[in-house]
């Protein structure tokens, strides 16, 4: 017996293979996410509840409840790393956002000459990997043989140990991070500013608003959603900072530049080989990042509804 309704027949045919077509299209992505994201996450979650030492004769991995979390969170090293991560993240995100917005605003000025040249120069750090940036700056900052101290020496400034002085190491890392990461924010803000509607600004101009008033009351409010997204991206990356620390200071001098990510790495792979505690640290960091993301997204929603 044939179906009297051709449309119903088509719907039946696409279901013959099992899942609806749209789900089948999503299947590869779903599988990839399971393998790449879900499996390591679940594995880390399990490992964080075990006494899991990579080396040593005893390979047993008994479940020990939340001991790894308690040990990790109650250690002096964690308190120190959390403080460093907070200082680093707040500093780089604040300064980079301000600098990037200023640069993007200048780039978006009408009638700007050589705009593409400025853009090209600003984008160059973005093309470098953090490891390359770290090595590059390590050479530039070498107290005796680096070019920075040499240039400063020409105007009589004494040599500074940027990475070897406990008071300078963190500010130096912040400066290098700003040099490297500001570009991406410039790009996002510039794209946002270029896409803003012209009418409100022109209306303000007709009404006699100054440039500062236009910026304060029209441009910035219109840019808020883009600024929030950009800040969110940078906050997540900054809280996870590891590579620059690894290349520039190895957490030193002492542990003055050790971040949570670096602490997790050295706990898991560079000393005690304690995978259980490192996994617990990773899960804690994950919750911190998820929490920050939720807060920022809620703030965006609130701003949007206002």
């Amino acid at each position, binding site marked *: 017996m044939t179906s009297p309704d051709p449309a119903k027949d088509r719907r039946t045919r696409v279901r013959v293979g099992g899942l609806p077509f749209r789900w089948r299209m999503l299947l590869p992505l779903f599988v990839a996410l399971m393998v790449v994201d879900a499996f390591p996450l679940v594995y880390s979650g399990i490992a964080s509840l075990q006494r899991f030492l*990579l*080396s*040593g*004769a005893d*390979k047993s991995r008994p479940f020990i409840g939340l001991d790894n979390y308690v040990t990790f969170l109650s250690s002096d090293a964690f308190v120190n790393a959390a403080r460093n991560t907070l200082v680093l993240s707040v500093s780089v995100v604040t300064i980079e956002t301000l600098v990037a917005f200023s640069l993007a605003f200048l780039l978006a000025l009408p009638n700007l000459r050589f705009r593409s040249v400025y853009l090209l120069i600003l984008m160059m750090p973005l093309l470098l990997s953090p490891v390359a940036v770290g090595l590059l700056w390590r*050479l530039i900052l*070498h*107290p*005796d*043989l*680096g070019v920075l*101290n040499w240039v400063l020496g020409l105007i009589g400034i004494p*040599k*500074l*140990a*940027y*990475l*070897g*002085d*406990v008071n300078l*190491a963190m500010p130096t890392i912040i400066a290098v991070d700003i040099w490297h990461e500001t570009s991406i924010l410039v790009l996002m803000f510039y794209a946002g500013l270029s896409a803003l509607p012209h009418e409100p600004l022109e209306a303000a101009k007709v009404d006699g608003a100054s440039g500062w008033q236009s910026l304060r009351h029209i441009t910035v409010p219109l840019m808020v959603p883009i600024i929030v997204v950009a800040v969110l991206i940078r906050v997540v990356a900054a809280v996870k900072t590891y590579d620059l620390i690894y290349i520039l*200071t*190895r*957490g*030193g*001098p*002492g*542990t*003055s530049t050790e971040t949570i990510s670096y602490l997790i790495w*050295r706990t898991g*792979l*560079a*000393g*005690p*080989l304690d995978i259980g505690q490192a996994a617990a640290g990773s899960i804690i960091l994950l919750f911190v990042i998820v929490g920050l993301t939720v807060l920022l997204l809620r703030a965006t929603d609130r701003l949007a509804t206002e």
Partner: protein
Amino acid sequence: MNQPSHGRTTRRGGHRRVLGIGLAAVILVSACSTGGSSPSASTAASAAASTAASVVPSTATKPYAGTTLHMLMEDLTETHYIADLLPDLEAKTGIKVEFEQVPYSNMYEKLVPQLSGPEKSGSYDVVAVDYYWPGEFARSGWMLPLDDWIARDKTDLSGIVPAFFDVNGRVDGKTYYVPYFPYPMGIVYRKDLNIQIPKTMEEFVTYTKSLKKGDFYGAAMQGAPTDPIAMEWLNFLFANGGDLYAADLKTPTVNNEIGLKALNQYLDMIDNAAQTGAAGANLDDASNTFAQGKAATMVTYVTIFAGFFQDPASSQVVDKWDVAPMPGTGQGNVGVWSFGVPKSSKNPDAAWEFIKWVTSEDISRQRSLKGGSPDYTSFYSDPEILAKFPYLTKALDILKAGKGLPLITKQQDLVATLGRELSEAASKRKAPQAALDAIAVKLAELATQN
């Protein structure tokens, strides 16, 4: 700025207090046995015999043709010397070798995930093992014992300085590694400036401080965490007669009055004798400072710099330097690199063939003639080698006097703790005694994990 291609290097383990005595005895016996005859002739003859006996496979010609061994190696001169000689291995056995060369600081973290995997699952067929890894690697069940291969092939390893096997060869009575180059630490100094290394550590500190004038420093130092400062400071500890543990390898002694004295001396030099930023400098930084002629002395690995300090492209001090043992007890930190076969190796038999080849007397001598650090006793009295590298005579004294890390299982953790806490003291974030006490607490904990 030129980067020295030596990377860092290391320390060693053992109830290796024996190193000094063992070496002295071995060298004496060796000297007696070769006395009178031409050392170079006897070396050549034994090299030929060794090559015939142990390198050429007995079963068939090139039984390993088509086999490629993958290895992780530190990017330093000794590795380059071996790489230059690899065509010889391929000609004899058919084995091709691919080196993945990385800085020292990346080696451990790359090795551990490979070694801890299932059998024959790893990326590396042979592993170069630094002297504070052997206990952890072997006792974790990651390495294959070599004794059966040695017995099967009647491999003659007696020419290699026996004490090196105590440092990085035997663990719990089994041979897991074959040593291929030692790296004793002592002082490199500018002989052209008439620098005289004093007899005591107190005098050495005062002297290096007095040498600092403007942009010229009394010492090029490496105070960065974690490996550089740990390795450097151990020389200060040993030279003052101190040690990490008492003889029982359970009771930490690092925080006693000798340890405190050694740390105070070290901090005094970092602050008042060394280059700007020494507390954040690694081995490459400090080596560059010395190579650029900006420092009078440097506590470092005295046998691995022939290539770097003598290269006019990278060095302003060609022929202007010499080596000396540490003042005080004369004891410096001594490490040894060895080769071993991991359980995760996909080609364990070919891996053993490589180890036999690279540690054979013939190949070892060729490495030493290129500037490598000699592993065979006889090379330290070999006129041809000494003619090219006269400082080796002094290096031998440094080797004989040296000592290293205790052979506990978690040596890497020990060094990481040492480096971190010492760096805390160097950066004034902790008082010296507090840093040493923290180290002692960790040492006591690690002693229970053997």
